[in-house]
């Protein structure tokens, strides 16, 4: 019998997170209304509520802190100027993520269209630079592996597998069917397998979980990506 595993795994749609998300959505609506009514601080507050989630997505997708910061700023300015077009048929956070992800994908595609030429003897230019942000060797290897994916696969993997958003939510963010999200993730993971095989997180334990039909255990450090920032940030 296949069951969703309990303790030790990340359950991204547990009740408290849902309630927090609902409360966040109400805050968003109030703030958006204030912004549309001319409050010059309201959109900055919306940004504060979502910035870490948006940052994580932009950073993971682009793999470069400076690029991520630029993409995020462009995206948020665009979102603010077009806030009147947000019609409430999705969560504001979904809409913001969509704008940010699209800004990142645009940058990735532009980069792909104009690849940097590396000379054959240019062995000091790694695909990803380690000083972009503080990270472990493992995170660095994962990021380098992500660089090999197409922008679309990369965005799907970042949102679903790294940030833990539900597939349906990611489908809304990317404006593609859920099946497309799943297949992008599946292809992306298949590409990552040979690149990440050397990073062990305990194959025996994985094996046991396969037999029990349970997802791989997650470390305690896994971020709860759907958890809203502390409410005290709201003034």
């Amino acid at each position, binding site marked *: 019998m296949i069951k969703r595993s309990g303790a030790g795994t990340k359950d991204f749609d547990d009740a408290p997170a849902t309630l927090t998300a609902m409360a966040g959505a109400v805050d968003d609506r109030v703030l958006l209304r204030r912004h549309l009514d001319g*409050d010059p601080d309201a959109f900055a507050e919306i940004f504060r509520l979502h*910035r*870490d989630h948006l940052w994580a997505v932009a950073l993971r997708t682009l793999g470069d802190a400076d690029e991520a910061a630029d993409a995020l700023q462009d995206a948020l300015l665009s979102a*603010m100027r*077009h806030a009147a077009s947000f019609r409430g048929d999705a969560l504001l956070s979904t809409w913001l993520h969509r704008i940010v992800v699209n800004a990142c994908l645009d940058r990735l595609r532009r980069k792909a269209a104009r690849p940097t030429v590396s000379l054959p003897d240019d062995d000091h230019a790694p695909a990803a630079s380690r000083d972009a942000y503080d990270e472990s060797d493992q995170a660095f290897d994962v990021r380098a592996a992500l660089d090999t994916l197409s922008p679309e696969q990369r965005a799907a993997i970042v949102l679903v597998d790294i940030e833990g958003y539900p597939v349906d939510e990611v489908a809304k963010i990317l404006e593609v069917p859920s099946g497309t999200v799943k297949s992008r993730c599946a292809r992306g993971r298949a590409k*990552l397998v040979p690149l990440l095989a050397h990073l062990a997180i305990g194959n025996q334990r994985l094996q046991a979980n396969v037999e029990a039909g349970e997802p*791989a255990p997650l*470390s305690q450090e896994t971020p709860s990506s759907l958890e809203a920032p502390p409410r005290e940030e709201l003034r």
Partner: protein
Amino acid sequence: MNTSHPEPEALAELVDRRADFHGDTDVPDPNTREMLAHVENCPQCTEKLAEIRHVRGLLRSLPGVSMPDDVASRIEATLRAEAAKTATAPAIAVLPRQRISQRISPRLRRMPQLSAAAVVVLVMVALGGGIAAIVMNSSDNNASHNTAGSAAMAPVKPDVVLTSGANYQQGSIRQVVAALVMAHVPGSATQFDGLKSLATDAQSSAASAPEAADKGFSALSPPASAPAASAPPASRTSNADSSTSGGGMTQHAPARTAPSGPLADSRALAQCVATLTGGAVQQPVLVDYADYNGQPATIIVLRDQVNPAVLDVWVELDSGNCAHDGDTAYFGRLSAGT
């Protein structure tokens, strides 16, 4: 049993699907069951499945990242500066420009905005005679024009339907709509916040524009004396002679003889309203089949989702589709000072 090895993609999806099954009641479909049966007895596939789980586990166990303070401060400052810049201009007048103007031909874009006096004339025309007001309470005339894709949606019946032919402009639409609602919806002045003040703005503009005031702007003022939604005469329907009672004024465009455009169908309108409100079906307070910046458009006035005491004004281009952002403009609340 299927003895062939599933493709790597199918295996990767299997990881998703197995994680999605909840409790004892979720039974995988036959194909998945078959694949599971194969995988459980195939060391090679079990190994591959473990590899995919391994990748997934690695990805999920990456440490979380927080936006660096300097980046956060920079972006926040940029947003505040930009917001302050736009807040000095009327918020509503600025926001929708980029959305709808993209669809407007360069020729039309060069058209000057309506002056305050012109706004007044426009309202007078709408009220005085260039308007065909149809109250939709009696029957659903449009049910037979049901469009594909909207069949499941119950039709909506706006409180007031107009075919003014007016050419709404970005800078004045809220004042004009406020005046129209005041004129056509009984009790609207007390029911909706800020309506009277907005309509009065239009009236004040008229006072400083004598040529317009002379032509009977007083028709706007008291809702009691204006045509009420519950009692417009049958003669003001599609066949009414709209050219004679408007004080001889001209309009940007001739009034339509009947609601037209994609949203003339009440189910399509319901679908559109549901899209605008995020799913809630509500009866529009007022719908005007008219023009926006010279393009055929439907003006939809809805009660605000958050605060039903305020009204929201939406413009949907006839050439567009409610589901697409670029076809819809939101003009915000009908309340003073917004």
